[in-house]
């Protein structure tokens, strides 16, 4: 493919301009570029690290876990432990006085 016909002077000026463009001083990033890339990677990794496990972030698993926690008999376990402790101490378990 050829360039459009131009005046020879303009061809020369165009070539000079292109060679000036190619001769421009090569730019460089600021010093310690690698350190900044590493810092960026670390920041992204920290941002992506989840606070809760992945399976827990799924609604079905989270709901199941919540249902399991709610169904645990918290009071019964505490009373049972108290009875065992009292039995070891040779006392009878406390009971209500008759009216």
């Amino acid at each position, binding site marked *: 493919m050829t*360039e459009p016909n*131009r005046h020879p002077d303009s061809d020369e000026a165009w070539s000079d*301009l292109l060679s000036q*463009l190619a001769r*421009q*001083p*090569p730019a*460089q990033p600021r010093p310690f570029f690698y350190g900044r890339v590493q810092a*960026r990677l670390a920041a992204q990794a920290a941002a992506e690290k989840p606070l809760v496990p992945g399976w827990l972030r799924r609604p079905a698993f989270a709901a199941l876990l919540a249902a399991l926690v709610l169904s645990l008999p918290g009071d019964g376990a505490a009373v049972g432990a108290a009875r065992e402790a009292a039995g070891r101490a040779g006392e009878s378990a406390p009971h209500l006085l008759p009216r």
Partner: protein
Amino acid sequence: MPFAPEACAELAKPLAADAETDLVAQLQQGSEAAFRTLVERYQDRIYQVILSLLRNPEEAEDVAQEVFVEVHQTIGRFRGEAALSTWLYRLATSRALKSLRRARTQKRFAFFTSLLGFGNEVLHEAPTHAHPQALLEGQQQLGLLLDHIARLPDQQRVAFTLRHEQELSYEQIAAVLHTTVPAVESLLFRARKTLRQHLQPHFRHD
């Protein structure tokens, strides 16, 4: 800006195929030393091509960092169909163009919000990277050329920059742009024609 010709000559050397394969293998195994080698070997070239497209050192640095972060995260998917440098240039040009598009969208949005009176901030042109040589020697033609390169359509702009600033071959540009050599020739022909049309009056008056 400091310039070490020996260092640039070293960087300009293509990485031998074996060395490149080794480096990629180490990167895929998660070697931090290999990643450091890659960054230090390619950072100048990647920064230069991005700076050529964006003309803003801060944005160019930011986008160059994004490119290497993307390399770190996606090197596992690199299958070696293209040279490592081609892949890096591809990431760099696509990220630079994305950044340009985002900046244009923000500019348009700011313009419309200012028309509607939502924002009271003064609209101004983002500072552009004035060419150091043009500044030092007052070469207005070079500055003018850079201004008109910035107005070319994206593909023509990338092809012209890779050819005339990074001095890549037509084959390399075709690989970076995912196209054919004749398509690159066509892009360059149209870019040169447009640029010469704009610069012609300035040649005549000199």
